[in-house]
């Protein structure tokens, strides 16, 4: 088991090196534009060349990458081309903001989706139709519209919640909760719609399996069979969907972050990419890859725990 985890982590590191290398190679052709963007307008190409040399961007691309890599291994991700901030620190800061929103969103997603999905699958009838309709609405209404409506109602009209901004949880937990409420609801609708359909589907399949009937013939209550047995077996696929949603939300919260002026990972990555802030893009890529590797590993471990047949260690 430990060996398995180590093997996975090592292959994750190799992946990280490859992905960052590819990213760097993709960025290299834009270096000229990035340098002149940093200087601003009204500067001749000689000045751009001078600054490019100054920043070490004129060296062979591979040498630059290896430089970055050896610094990164030592924990130094460099400083932003534009703000001069240490990349490791700011990436962590922005990631923390987004994670605090995404994790809450996903926890609520799980709570709501599992409840709705299980109820719909095991009760059928009206409960199921309501769930289906709610899920359809979630797919149909873009979260932008939900965000607009909530901001107008809760922030501007009723003044219950802030319309913009983010308070770190470490600073003031209550203000944090208030600042993420509308963004979380906006994100929640779509992810609940997706996961509920998933849970409902696998639960229906699971409840039709033979072992469910057999367990019932032993006098075990339907409720226990549904929750203790069928749900556990249905959890694997749902967890996989959830892990995809997690990764998607890291970048996908971007629109919500923009609309609420939240300094999150998505908008940070977006802005850095538009500007061509090479050290920041590299840092973001590295963090993102490591995060994805970790999440996938965690999902596989939990899946193994849930489903003994799938244990690969």
């Amino acid at each position, binding site marked *: 088991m430990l060996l398995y985890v180590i093997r996975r982590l090592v292959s994750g590191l190799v*992946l990280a090196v490859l*992905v960052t290398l*590819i*990213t760097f190679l*993709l960025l290299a*052709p834009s270096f000229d534009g990035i340098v002149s963007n940093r200087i601003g307008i009204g500067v001749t190409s000689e000045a751009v060349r001078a600054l490019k040399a100054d920043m070490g961007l004129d060296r062979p691309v591979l040498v630059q990458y290896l430089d970055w890599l050896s610094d990164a291994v030592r924990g130094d991700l460099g400083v932003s081309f534009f703000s001069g901030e240490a990349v490791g620190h700011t990436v962590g800061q922005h990631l923390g903001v987004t994670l605090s929103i995404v994790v809450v969103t996903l926890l609520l997603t799980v709570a709501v989706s599992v409840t709705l999905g299980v109820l719909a*699958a*095991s*009760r*059928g*009838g009206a409960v*199921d139709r309501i769930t289906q309709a709610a899920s359809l609405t979630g*797919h*149909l209404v*873009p979260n*932008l*519209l939900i965000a607009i409506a909530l901001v107008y109602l809760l922030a501007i009209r009723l003044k219950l919640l802030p319309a913009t901004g983010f308070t770190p949880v470490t600073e003031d937990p209550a203000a944090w909760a208030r600042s993420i409420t509308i963004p979380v609801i906006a994100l929640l609708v779509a992810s609940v719609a997706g996961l509920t*359909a*998933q849970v*409902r*589907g696998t639960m229906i*399949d699971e*409840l*039709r*399996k*033979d*072992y469910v*009937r*057999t*367990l*019932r*013939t*032993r*006098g*075990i*209550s*339907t409720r*226990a069979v549904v929750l*203790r*047995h069928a749900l*556990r*077996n249905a959890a694997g*696929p749902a967890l996989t969907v959830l892990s995809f949603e997690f990764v998607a939300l*890291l*970048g*996908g919260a*971007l*629109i919500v972050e*923009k609309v609420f002026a939240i300094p999150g990972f998505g908008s940070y*990555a*977006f802005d850095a*990419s538009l500007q061509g802030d090479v050290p920041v893009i590299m840092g*973001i890529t590295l963090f993102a*890859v490591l995060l*994805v*590797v970790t999440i996938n590993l965690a999902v596989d471990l939990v899946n193994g725990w*849930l*489903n*003994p*047949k799938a244990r690969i260690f």
Partner: protein
Amino acid sequence: MTAETPTGRPDPRRRRSTAHKLLRDPQAVVTAGLLLFIVAMGLLAPLLASHGPNESSLDHIDAGIGTPDYPLGGDHSGRDIWARLLHSINTSVVSALIGASIALIVGVAAGLVGGYYDRARSATEWTFSLVMTFPGLLLLIVLMPLTGGDFRITMAIFGVLLSPGIYRIVRNQVVGVKNELFVDAARVSGLTDRRILARHVLFAVRGPVIIATAFLCGSSIGVQAGLAFLGVGPATVPSFGSMAAEGFQNLYIAPLQVVWPSLVLGTMTASLVLLGNALRDTLEGATRRPSKVAALKAAKASAVDDASSALLVVQDLAIAYPTPSGELNEVVSGVDLRLEAGETLGLVGESGSGKTQTAFAVLGVLPPEAVITRGSIRLDGRELLGLKESELRGLRGRTIAYIPQEPMSNLDPSATVGSQLVEGLRAASGVSRQEARERVLALLARVGIPDPEHTFGSYPHQISGGMAQRVLIAGAVACRPVLLIADEPTTALDVTVQAEILDLLRDLQEEMGMAVLLVTHNFGVVADICDRIAVMRDGRVVETGTSLEIFREARHPYTRMLLDSVLDEETVRTDPPAAASPMAAVAESAGKEK
């Protein structure tokens, strides 16, 4: 799925009826119709709108709905919102086509190669885990200078990012299908690898791939709109995303400007998701309609004329299933059975004769769609039909118990053998966990399991089929039931194990004095163990009698035919075991993949 439930019976007309089924599924029809309608509107945009998407008029800036020639008004640049909306459809469709087809081409090609050639697999696996790890959105933006913001190139790259999903589906299917008989047969008959891949494997994976395509189109459309919302890409390409972004900025002056594109975009993506779900239901044969787990629809027990003192009396029992058109289709029509305490009754019949349905009716575990239309089931004089689930639960395990046919599928794969047995024992008898554990260990030893401690802690997939059947028997007799219903308890087992299991059943019956209702198609088994026999055909009992009578002088021609076929039994099984057909296996594993 147990072979005999009518809903799960393989339908010989299945292939031809796929299209029919889709046409009858309102979800598929409505969503596909909506999508076709929207796409057609896009294609007809030049005819339907009186302006080009980028034509701007200073006189129509933020014009209201219903302005002549501007049915939905003008946007902040005086462009015709209706025209832009229609042209945005085309942008979405092109995005979907590019994104989905690139993902399909890359994913299917690599999946075929990686799945079929074991040597290539580690390379493809690596490549795709690399692709999956890539922060997609970042990549699309980083590549902007190279793509020039052209959404078609962007969507092609996005297609590559989507391809791992398709790769996995195809690779899994290919690995699974590769060793199936028909591919082996194809190989023997001299087909080249390439033709095998093309002909058989592609055919087998088409279902999951078609389903995935709907979702690929949906996400491509969503990502294109998202990027356009963020301002990536040229302004002259009309897109729901850029329309929504502009409308959002214009929110307080013309709130509807953000609603139109959101509405059409939402309709398109939701339709694709729902169409995908409908396709999955149809192609994979699963009607995902849930119903209450324990919601038996039963008519009030009919008046009973026989006040017999037998342990189990089934009278005039009729069970029906609703057909897609809503009518009821009877699978059991007026069955009468009697079983005295301690007696063994063989319920014999071919698959589909209704014997398992009858057994499930006694246990009260018929599938939720089933309807008991009439009749009576009395156990020890107590009418079972119409009892509440909680009342039935009190009987199950303690008074009536059940041994299923297929040992593996009847154990919860993710719980240990021991925990499942302990849970059942405690539910039925209420003993303490410790005592339950000891009794289960003793039972496991009693049913002939050599190392009870080890088996107790094992998961179902770690034990053999014969062991699993012993475990199920142990589970059934744990509370010394009065009536044991055994549904083909030996059919799925090896011939050598069959005899052992039958011996065990006989021993246990004698030891505990249980009555046994043995459901089987096998007269060999019946001869071994049964006191009396009831022969079922097409939902009716055609003949009843003692074993001796039936074997010596069966009156009904059907019984005689069954008896004649006993000789062939070892070679030809009339009941197909679960998931016997390769197609069913494919469909099932595809379901797990999701």
